[in-house]
């Protein structure tokens, strides 16, 4: 599953297969955009992104010893906010500074009938975890999430 591509895209997300669970991948012109796109990929595991209105903002901050652990922390912070606020998110802005992250996530409370959430994400894992630039200079941020 992936986001439709456009010629002028700055970021996009996709899922990649894992035998029991699912991989999330954000691709962007900057590391921040790749992290934002990875966040969208997490929401897309649960529901159709288009069904989630970015109405309410939530602030998120985390830090980790390296950028891969920071990606996992970022996605786990999202999992935590979704679980405790009973919300889904469809828009993100991420700011990175060394190994700390400040972000805003916009979304709305879960409405089961409308969102048809398929599965809850238990946590982001270190499986297939990487944050790196590809040969075209794009940032790729990815890992498998446990569902």
């Amino acid at each position, binding site marked *: 599953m992936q986001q439709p591509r456009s010629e002028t895209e700055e970021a996009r997300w996709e899922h990649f297969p894992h*035998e029991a669970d699912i991989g999330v991948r954000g691709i962007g012109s900057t590391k921040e955009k790749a992290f934002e796109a990875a966040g969208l990929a997490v929401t897309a595991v*649960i529901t159709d992104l288009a069904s989630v209105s970015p109405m309410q903002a939530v602030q998120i901050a985390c830090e980790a*010893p390296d950028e891969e652990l920071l990606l996992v922390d970022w996605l*786990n912070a999202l999992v935590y906010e979704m679980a405790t606020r009973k919300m889904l998110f469809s828009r993100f802005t991420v700011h990175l500074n060394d190994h700390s992250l400040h972000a805003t996530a916009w979304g709305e409370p879960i409405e089961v009938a409308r969102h048809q959430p398929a*599965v*809850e994400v238990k946590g982001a894992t270190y499986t297939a975890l990487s944050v790196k630039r590809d040969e075209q200079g794009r940032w790729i941020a990815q890992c498998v999430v*446990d569902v």
Partner: protein
Amino acid sequence: MDLKLLKRRGPDEWHISPHGKMRVPGVIYATESLIRGMDEKVYEQVVNVATLPGIMQASYAMPDAHWGYGFPIGGVAAFDPDLGGVVSAGGVGFDISCGVRTLRTGLTVEDLQPVKERLAEALFHRIPAGVGSTGLVHLDKHEMDAMLAGGAKWAVGKGYGLHEDLEFIEERGCMAGAKPENVSDHAKKRQQDEMGTLGSGNHYLEVQQVVTLFDAEAAAVFGIREGDIVVSIHCGSRGLGHQIGTEFLKSMAVSAARYHIELPDRELACAPINSEVGQDYLGAMRAAINCALANRQIVTHLVREVFADVLPEAVLSLLYDVSHNTCKVEEHVIDGTPTRLFVHRKGATRAFGPGHSDIPPSLRAVGQPVLIGGTMGTASYVLVGTKESMSLAYGSACHGAGRSMSRHQALRQWHGREVVKDLAGRGILIRSPSMRGIAEEAPGAYKDVSEVVDAADEAGLARKVARLEPLICVKG
């Protein structure tokens, strides 16, 4: 998996010779066809587990093994604390103490038929399931800690279930050594509205029919006959366990270098049992086991309430409750000497053989009931632990079918509504808040549970007792 990587030691036993940094061999119990279908990642993960400090005898994989996190799902490994042995958050997994419990109802299929639709609706409305669902029990800080220390025993004390249920739960419903103070505020907050909920994904509540008995003696001891109706519940420690897994995975990955542990895969994050991080995790993980036991106990109470409304003649008694994501301290014989080991079972069920003192006295003569969950369209199984299982993989067996297809692939192949309609045509009523969830969990996305169970039986890990087929399934 490439058979050339393995040495066959029996019809269902395959060895990986120690090489590289492996401290012990790898052993996979499976039929040739299951081995051929296994991902190469299972091989890699069995090998990686074999490199961890203090591992004893072998790194084992059960017949349903598939690609997991650090450990394969279906992985079993035991560590000796006196030999530098480790405890691994990855080796227990995110859904700590996820498991299955099965209840007898005292009813037969004939009793159920006239009210089947009504029962399905009532269960679906009464038992919270799916993303964003909240339980009826909300715990303040004091009660949260009491629950984390007391498990199902706490739940029974609060009026959820019967005292006699506790006898038929591993650890008699209360895991000793839990330290609620080691559980973070984040983990507790994630749990505050989630007590007595099923969750989502492969978790379920099923009303099932006993269709075949394979072992009349064990079935008689377990109190099940052909045509009986039973209820099975598959769920775990919910948000609290997930959060503990997440937090300790990170702290163990970061602390590994400090303890001079070389991790072949960060997901294998572990710490020496005799270390601060190791002990902190054990206290928190045991609290999460209690959370799972309390959760299944509250769901059981809700199921009893529904049956009291719809089928008041039913008497729901607990057959058994097993957990399949745990690390427990057990005594096993190593080279003739009883040794205290920390046994990790990641997607593997404890399957103690006859006579073991941890089995309730009324079942002890035949062995521990082993409950294997299937899919909503196939079957589940009851097995029993064997004497030989104790020396095969510390008294362990498989835990379920295991996926054969990714969620993504399943979503492309099936529509939820069609799956529901097809199964209704076969007399199986599915109730779920999410049609997409149903498509992702379509029976065809799983391996053949019967083949997995047959392999466990042939390998001697556990013996088949009964086949259960679903009549009603509530999915999260």
